[in-house]
């Protein structure tokens, strides 16, 4: 699986850099490359390189990969149209809005459809949230108010919209660090920081796959030289994210800039990040590849990697003696209903020999 992973990264890098990819290395299962791409929401992007191979895949694999690319393309058209509709409607109603996520990241990609979005996000004035929701309703969206801090809307066949009232929810450590969304005097610094913090949030709490690392790479390419570095570092240090950001940037540059194959703990964490089904597959592969036993795997999962522990528990950097208490806290959190089910699935996977080929 590791070679498939490396080849997927190679295909993505070649697409981003507009260079011809190397032909499929011997022993690499291209179907698994495709599956890894789907899992990380980059299969459509990787297809651009696949089409340029001297010997592209044929038959069913080519067809499904192409269909994946076409589906992303159709969605991109529709999301662009939907976003424009909403902007026009907000303008007509004198509602201020900001876009800070996918619609701002997409233009950094060579082709807009290469960067898929699960939804379109807008930030609006809290006082205008209800009116903004009514506007979505008038455009055909079925809307739901979530605790008066956001509205989620859906329109057939597949357009999801989210309206927020601030950069981050109040119950996160990032909620106040960027100030008021509509009062910033540093729009580029704020955009850069917002997306970094968003990526960090996902890294810490699961769901940081290849695509977010690629976002980080392109974000840094576009804005890295323009931002006020002292200001950016100061903000990242306030939320104890400076070191992690720096390490992620190095990884991003290695993967998508210089094309260096990196197999460190961070790389593996990102590789495994995401849906439980794939986590179980990865568990299977890692246990088979390394011949480590299940108990050791579960111990490592329970204890977490160093980066995650240092950001979630900043006190550990100076007081490593507190590790057992932090592990205890982590264990208690793992007993929450959603996390407990995931933990049970992983324990079952280790016990159940039928999970292994």
């Amino acid at each position, binding site marked *: 699986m590791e070679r498939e992973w490396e080849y997927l990264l190679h295909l993505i890098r070649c697409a981003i850099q507009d260079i011809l990819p190397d032909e499929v290395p011997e022993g690499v299962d291209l179907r698994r490359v495709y599956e890894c791409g789907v899992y990380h929401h980059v299969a459509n992007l990787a297809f*651009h390189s696949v089409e340029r191979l001297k010997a592209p895949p044929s038959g069913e694999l080519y067809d499904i990969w192409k269909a994946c690319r*076409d589906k992303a*393309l*159709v969605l991109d*058209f*529709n999301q*662009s*149209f*939907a976003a424009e*509709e909403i902007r026009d409607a907000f303008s007509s109603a004198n509602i201020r809005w900001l876009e800070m996520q996918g619609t701002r990241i997409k233009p950094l990609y060579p*082709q807009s*459809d290469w960067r898929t979005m699960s939804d379109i996000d807008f930030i609006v004035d809290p006082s205008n949230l209800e009116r903004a929701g009514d506007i979505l309703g008038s455009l*055909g969206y079925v809307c739901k108010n979530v605790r008066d801090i956001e509205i989620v809307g859906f*329109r*057939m*066949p597949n357009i999801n919209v989210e309206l927020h009232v601030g950069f981050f929810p109040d119950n996160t450590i990032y909620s106040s660090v960027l100030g008021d969304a509509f009062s910033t005097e540093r729009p580029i610094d704020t955009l850069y920081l917002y997306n970094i913090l968003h990526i960090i949030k996902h890294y810490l709490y699961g769901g940081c796959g290849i695509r977010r690392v690629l976002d980080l790479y392109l974000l840094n390419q576009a804005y890295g030289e323009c931002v006020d570095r002292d200001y950016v570092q100061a903000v990242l240090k306030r939320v104890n994210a400076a070191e992690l950001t720096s390490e992620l940037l190095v990884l991003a540059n290695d993967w998508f800039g210089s094309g260096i194959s990196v197999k460190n703990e961070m790389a593996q964490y990102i590789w495994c990040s995401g849906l439980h089904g794939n986590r179980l597959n990865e568990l299977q592969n890692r246990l088979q590849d390394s011949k480590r036993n299940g108990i050791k795997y579960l111990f490592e999962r329970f204890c977490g990697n160093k980066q995650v522990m240092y950001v979630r528990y900043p006190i550990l950097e100076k007081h490593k003696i507190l590790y057992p208490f932090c592990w205890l806290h982590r264990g208690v959190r793992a007993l929450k209903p959603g996390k407990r089910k995931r933990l049970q699935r992983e324990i079952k996977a280790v016990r159940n020999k039928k999970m292994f080929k």
Partner: protein
Amino acid sequence: MKLKYKFIVRNVGGKPVAVAVGQDNQKFNGMIKLNASGETIFQLLSAGDISQEELLARFAVQFDISEETARPAVLAFLSQLQDNGLLDE
């Protein structure tokens, strides 16, 4: 005549592609790859109701050819749109 659905045409990888958008995407959830002449016909049909003769005239001007030269290609394309249920006459 005009297009039955609202389409957006964009250049993707150097080639024009048309996709039905908004609520029309539920009725036609696919994409159409066009060439230069197809893109022109699409744009003319998207602008509003247009007669076949007017479309032919504008197409001929756009490509700097006679209407007689343009006629077979234009009619063939319109026929394809009709066969796929994309034309409102």
